[in-house]
Each structure stands twice: as structure tokens, then as C-alpha cells.
């Protein structure tokens, strides 16, 4: 009896966690798949199986191409730029200087602030008529008349990318910093003795040694940025005419504004599959890391 209990005991310990994830993650995943392959009425009632009809309808629209391209640009630009800038910031903060603690605390700010508020503030800052960016530049004497910062949808999208980068940098910085602080000083001393210059040390010691942290932050950021909804939703709602939409804002509009839940579910499934590929890559990386341990 006791032996039997010991066998099932671990499963009792993980049960609450499993139930929670099953009900609120696995079940919605199943529901999204079911709706993607079914006819769904405007009121959201799921009717019969329709095969790939929803996928064909959703991906056949001209808007879909724009949205897909925007999603790629959004994800790549935000992740690449914030990784590079975040890395540089981490190198700076890894030096010992007066006020370092304060600087670190300041870098936390964008990470801790909810995205909807960040996006609102930037929307206010770049406003043409009363935005404070124009006010600031005028006071500094750089411009004399107000500049329209968002003349085209592309310009708006670029600002959204900027805000995305702004809020993503701290995560990269702190991940890299945690790696930098684990590097043994003797590596650098030895390299200096061998006559290595700053750049040689950076590329041959620093970057290889923080590679694990960089990998984690990059892969997680790809997922977060791909899924990021509040920035674009708050700043432009994807308008005009889907020119600033990404997959998540597009599917949100389809589902909750246009009453096309079946098509929205189809796009969810596409997004889900893209993320699954990312997840698999991530798994391969982490499992490799485990073997090396």
C-alpha cells in the first residue's frame, strides 16, 4: 500500500499545476483548433466542420499579406535592435562607477511599466499638434515649427517598433548582466597579459561566455514580441486599413469587431504553429544546455 502511494505521490504534487494549465491553456488551444476548422456564426456558435475554409478565407485577403509582413518586420526589428542596444547597455552597467545602483534602478522602469501606459505616453509625445517632442525640440531651438512625426502609416509603425524596442531593452540588459557578473576576472587579466585589445576581449571572451544568457533572452523575446498586443493596439489599433496590424491585433479585430471568429481562430492556429517552431528551437537549445551541464 505504502509503496503504491510512493509511486503516485509525485503526480499528486504536480496535479494542481497540471489542472490549472489544462483548463486555461490546453482547453483554449483545443477550442481554437476546433473553431478554426468549423463554421462559426457571428454570435460565436460553433457549427459543422468546414475543413480549411477559414484558413483559405483568412489568408486569401490582401490584408493578410501586409499583416504577415508587418509581423516579421516588427519581430525582427524589435528583437535585433533591442538585443544589440541592451547588450551595449549591459556592458556599460557592468563597470563600477558612482551611481551604478541608481542607473540599474532606472533601467528597470520600462520593464515594470504596463505596456498600455508606455504606449499612451509615446502616443502623446509624438502628437503633431501638442506633443511634447515638438515642444522639447522647439525649446532647444532645433526646430521652429511643429513636425508631423507620423505622416505615413509606415512612420507610425516605425514609432511602434521604437516603443517595442524601448520596453524590450531592460530584459536583455539584465539577462546579459547576470551572465557578465559570472565571468571570472582572470580571463581578462590573462588576455591583457597576452596583449589583447578591448575588441578582441569582447569578441573572444565576453560574447562567447554570455552566449547562454543571450540565447535565453533572444528566444524569449522573439516569443514576447511576436505576441505583443498592447503597444500596437493602444497606438494605432492597426489602422489605417491594416497597415500597422500584426497577426495578433489582426486576429483580435477579426474576432471581436468583425464577427469572424472562425477566420480569427485560423490565424490563431497559424500563429500557434509559428510559435511552436520557435518553441522547438528553444527546447533544442535548452536540452543541449542540460547535456553540457
Amino acid at each position, binding site marked *: 500500500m505504502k509503496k503504491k502511494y510512493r509511486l503516485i505521490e509525485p503526480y499528486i504534487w504536480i496535479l494542481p499545476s497540471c489542472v490549472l494549465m489544462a483548463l486555461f491553456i490546453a482547453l*483554449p488551444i483545443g477550442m481554437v483548433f476546433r473553431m478554426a476548422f468549423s463554421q462559426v456564426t457571428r454570435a460565436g456558435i460553433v457549427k459543422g466542420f468546414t475543413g480549411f475554409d477559414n484558413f483559405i478565407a483568412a489568408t486569401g485577403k490582401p490584408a493578410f499579406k501586409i499583416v504577415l509582413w508587418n509581423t516579421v518586420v516588427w519581430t525582427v526589428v524589435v528583437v535585433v535592435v533591442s538585443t544589440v542596444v541592451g547588450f551595449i547597455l549591459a556592458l556599460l552597467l557592468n563597470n563600477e562607477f558612482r551611481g551604478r545602483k541608481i542607473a540599474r534602478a532606472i533601467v*528597470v522602469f520600462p520593464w515594470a511599466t504596463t505596456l498600455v501606459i508606455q504606449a*499612451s505616453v509615446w502616443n*502623446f509625445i509624438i502628437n503633431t499638434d501638442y506633443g511634447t517632442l*515638438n515642444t522639447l525640440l522647439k525649446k532647444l531651438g532645433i526646430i521652429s515649427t511643429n513636425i508631423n512625426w507620423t505622416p505615413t502609416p509606415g512612420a507610425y509603425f516605425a514609432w511602434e517598433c521604437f516603443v517595442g524596442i524601448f520596453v524590450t531593452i531592460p530584459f536583455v540588459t539584465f539577462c546579459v548582466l547576470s551572465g557578465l557578473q559570472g565571468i571570472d576576472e582572470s580571463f*581578462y587579466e590573462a588576455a591583457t597579459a597576452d596583449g589583447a585589445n578591448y575588441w578582441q576581449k569582447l569578441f573572444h571572451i565576453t560574447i562567447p561566455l554570455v552566449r547562454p544568457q543571450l540565447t535565453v533572452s533572444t528566444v524569449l523575446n522573439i516569443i514576447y514580441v511576436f*505576441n505583443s498586443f498592447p503597444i500596437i493596439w493602444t497606438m494605432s489599433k492597426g489602422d489605417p486599413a491594416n497597415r500597422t496590424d500584426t497577426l495578433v491585433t489582426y486576429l483580435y479585430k477579426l474576432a471581436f469587431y468583425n464577427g469572424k471568429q472562425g477566420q480569427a481562430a485560423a490565424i490563431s492556429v497559424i500563429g500557434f504553429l509559428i*510559435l511552436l517552431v520557435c518553441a522547438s528551437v528553444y527546447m533544442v537549445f535548452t536540452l543541449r*544546455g542540460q547535456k553540457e551541464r
Partner: protein
Amino acid sequence: MKNTGKKALTGKKLVLRILLYIAVIAFCVVILYPYFIMFTSALKSRAEIYSINGTLLPIKWRWSNLIDIWRKAPMLNYFLNSIIIALGSTAIAMVCGIPAAYALTRMKFKGQNVFLGIVIVSQMFAPVVLVIGIYKIMMTFHLVNSLLGLILVNAAFNQAFTVWLLRGTFDAISPEMEKAARIDGCGRVQSMFKVLLPIAAPGIVTTLIFVFINAWNEYTIALTLISDDVVKPLTVGINIFNGYNMVEWQYLFAASLFSIIPVIILFIGIEKNLASGLAAGGVKG
């Protein structure tokens, strides 16, 4: 690479030091700029906000804005809802996450890696991709427009981080003390509460605060599930000032200040532990 800064600086080193300060200050100024704008604009009058000849600082500091928002909108409601959601999500995430992390680090069982794999993969799916499914499920459970619904979704989507961070924490603690306690007649549960959890307290606090902040800042699911003003959290509620015709920026920002300041303070407290925890968890797998 590290300068101690104690030695007398000369020539090239001095130049580097100055450049370092300039770079750090430049970063900090850019990062603080939107917060500066939020703060100063929160204290302007509407006329000043919309003025074409704007000023950087308010001409007249209207501290009354900070009080007005509590009368112009059900801010107290939003605030309390945010607290309830954040606390509830944290509690459920921990109650489910601690035993799971314990089992992963202190027991051996079939399917251990499968469970860990599911936890890692679940992290990949932000609620927004599944938002239609979540909405449907919540309709079935009658949890639309309910705080409990939001709490459960938040707790579920934070399960990955919770298990992840706690596993890292528990892993770093030797099981010897617990074994000793169990030889002395403690049960598993007792040894966990009496020995492991007190030692793991710093890691647990980090995890707890992180989940709290995530739930506090959550926007998308709240936007979708909540339409009733009585149960709106701050992130959704403050958009009451974001009217269709006119945005009351000064109130929006005043309300935002109340929403972000507590969280920033909490976050600064855990920043160091959190980053190393996340990165280490990922490196270890």
C-alpha cells in the same frame, strides 16, 4: 574591463571614464523621458496640455488632478480590482507552482521531463494568441466579467515562470537538511514547510513579486473578458480618460502614476534575483 575607479585616473583612462558617464547618463535620460512627461503632464490643466505653445513644465502645477481622478472615475474600484487580481493570481500560481517545483527537484518520476517540457512550451503561448479560445471557455464556465476568471487565466499563464524560477531556487538548495528532518520523523509536507521553504524564501519572494507584477500589468485578457466597470482593473479602467472625442491626458497620466509607482518599487527590489533566475533557469533547462 572593470575599473575600480579608486586609482588616480590619467589620460586615456580618464577619457574612457568620462565617455562611460556620458553614455550611461544619455541612456538614463532617454529612459526617464516618458516618465518625466507622464509626471509633468499629469499636473497640467487640460488647456495647457492642448496648448499649441506648450511648455515642458506646467505653468501652474495642478496637484488637484491627483485627487480629481478618484472622483471623476471609479478609480478606487479599479485599484482594488487590480490588487485583488494580482494577489489572487499570485496565490494560485504559488499554491500550484510550489508543489510542482518541489516534485521536480525532490522526487524522481516517470514523465518528469514531459512535464517540464509542457511547462516550457506553455510559456510560448501568450494569452492573446489563444484569446478566442479563452473567451469561449470562460463563457462556458460563466467567468466572463468576473475577477475569478481573470485570476485563473493569469495564474495559468504564469505557471511556467513560477515553476521555472522555483525549480531553479529549490535545485540550488541541498536536500540533506530535509532528509535529516525526515529521519527525525517529519513528513514530506512538514519538511518542506519547516526546512525548504524558509531557506528558499528569497527565491520565493522574487517569484511572488514577479507574478504579482505580471498580473497587475496584464491588459489583453482583461480587455477581452471584462466590460463591466465594477470589475475592471487599472490597465483597462484608466482608458475611461481616453475618450472617443477628447483624451483627458492629464487624468490618464495622473491615474497611470498610481498604477506604475508601486510596481516599479517592487520591481527594483527583485531585479537582481529575477534576471539571474530567468537566465539560469534557461541555461539549465
